[in-house]
């Protein structure tokens, strides 16, 4: 599940922007064209996009694949505007070209023999799970999504997600949609009830939330995977900047893994989840 993808697989691509549309508060869907990428990309992997025309923004910006149309070659990422890079990327025009380094990182591999797939997403942590849910749509196991956001207008594509899942729990910080409070609350209740024997937990989102999921997995002895979003200078293992600390089990001589190459998907009981 945390297999490195073949290092030959990544390419530097010049991709045409097909569309850009706002999908939620401060959040945009950016679609670009690459048939090759649309064939290669796996849920959990990401693309590192160069910010155009901003000479002082040095690094590319990493975004998870959010939706891939394997036939048309349309690759979509979900971009939340949080700083100058993401802002600039949501100002590109259809027809422009973006320099994309992809596909990067490892990906989710879901064993077929589970009963329940529990996905816990906070905010933009939802990004990779849309793609994942599409890919596993035909799988027989139950898919439960716990999706928290700050406010009702921050949710992305809830109707579609609803149709891709067996059960959907929404929470908001301000109670404007779904349950009020942290997304951990419905997860806690869910886990407290007896359920499927072979559960697998996946999570992506704010640090605090992922830490809470980590604790719950420990408590309930559940296998789980976390997708981290460390700062990245390169995104392909060259700078060693995106180190993730491993939980010291007294075994490994290798205390650090690289988020971009060994991850971004890690077994939830293996790494220290930190800011």
């Amino acid at each position: 599940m945390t297999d490195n993808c073949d290092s030959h697989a990544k390419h530097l691509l010049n991709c045409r922007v097909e569309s850009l549309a706002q999908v939620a508060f401060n959040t945009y869907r950016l679609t670009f064209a690459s048939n090759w990428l649309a064939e290669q990309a796996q849920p959990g992997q990401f693309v590192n996009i160069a910010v155009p025309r901003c000479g002082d923004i040095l690094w590319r910006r990493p975004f998870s694949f959010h939706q891939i149309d394997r036939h048309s070659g349309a690759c979509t990422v979900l971009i939340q505007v949080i700083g100058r890079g993401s802002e600039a990327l949501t100002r590109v025009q259809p027809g422009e070209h973006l320099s994309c380094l992809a596909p990067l990182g490892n990906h989710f591999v879901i064993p077929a023999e589970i009963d329940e797939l529990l996905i816990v997403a906070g905010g933009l942590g939802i990004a990779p799970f849309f793609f994942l849910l599409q890919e596993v749509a035909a799988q027989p196991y139950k898919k439960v999504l716990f999706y928290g956001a700050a406010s009702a207008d921050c949710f992305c594509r809830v109707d579609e997600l609803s149709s891709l899942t067996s059960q959907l729990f929404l929470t908001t910080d301000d109670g404007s949609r779904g349950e009020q409070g942290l997304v951990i609350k419905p997860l806690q209740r869910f886990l407290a009830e007896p359920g499927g024997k072979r559960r697998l937990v996946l999570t992506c989102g704010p640090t605090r939330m992922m830490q809470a999921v980590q604790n719950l997995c420990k408590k309930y002895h559940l296998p789980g995977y976390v997708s981290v979003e460390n700062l990245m200078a390169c995104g392909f293992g060259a700078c060693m900047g995106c180190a993730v600390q491993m939980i010291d089990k007294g075994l490994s001589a290798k205390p650090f893994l690289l988020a971009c190459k060994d991850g971004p998907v890690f077994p939830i009981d293996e790494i220290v989840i930190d800011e």
Partner: protein
Amino acid sequence: MNKVAIRIGDVAFANPIMVASGTFGYAQEFDGLLDFSQIGAIVTKTVTLEPRTGNPPPRIWETAAGMLNSIGLPNVGVEEFIAKKMPFLRNLATRIVVNVAGKTGDDYVRIVERLQQVDGIDAYELNFSCPNVKQGGMSFSADAQIAERVTADVRKKSQRPLIVKLTPNVTSIADIGKAVEQGGADAVSAINTLVGMAVDVKSRRPRLSTITGGLSGPAIKPIALAKVYELCRKLTIPVVAIGGIMNLQDALEFFVVGATAVQIGTANFINPACAAEIAQGLHGYCRAQNLNLQELIGSLRVEK
């Protein structure tokens, strides 16, 4: 005729565009992203005697037209480097420069002694200057006497060209440069990163786990150019220029002030094919201008 070939010590390089230590791993990550045979040399990530795990995160931070790093020289150690990394490296159709660092002068000697037994290495770069290694490091690069002695000690054991990599964090980089020239270095390379820092005002914490780190990227290019110019004026051995080179134009500036070769660092992260593109660009430039690289090197006009 190859207009852009250069020499360091008795080794010829097909072109003067190298990739800088710590920004190209041991080349594997770049496989498929560029044609290695197009670049003049690969300088490996620093190799130390023992394996090092590196610094805890956070290790990097982006700054205006630059970045800070405090990676801390994680590497597998010289033995595993030889066993696991050299097989890939020695098959590449380019020169391999192994960058080495130690905590003591003796460490440098021992690593180089060990590497002398290994095929496929074309030169050594002695990293006297990494600002992120707490124990030692800085002393070698900031003290001319120590720098000269360590260079001389390594020189005795090495049958390959020695490039000594200098830190810019000193009052006079030329003094250190002259000392290592005296010690027998075949070339110097400069600059390593500048000591820098960033703070998260909200949490009141430094952005790097080591508080300060090394600044690289376009932000430091003017500083690198001044240091390289100073070295070129004061030394007789070749100077390999490093610092903020993102494109051909940047590289040309360094040749004009006197650099014999250049290394591409941070730019590899943004455009993995950068070094190959610059090398191709340099061929084209020399052809178009009908000049040899040697005519370009040191062509700065300062009378006025």
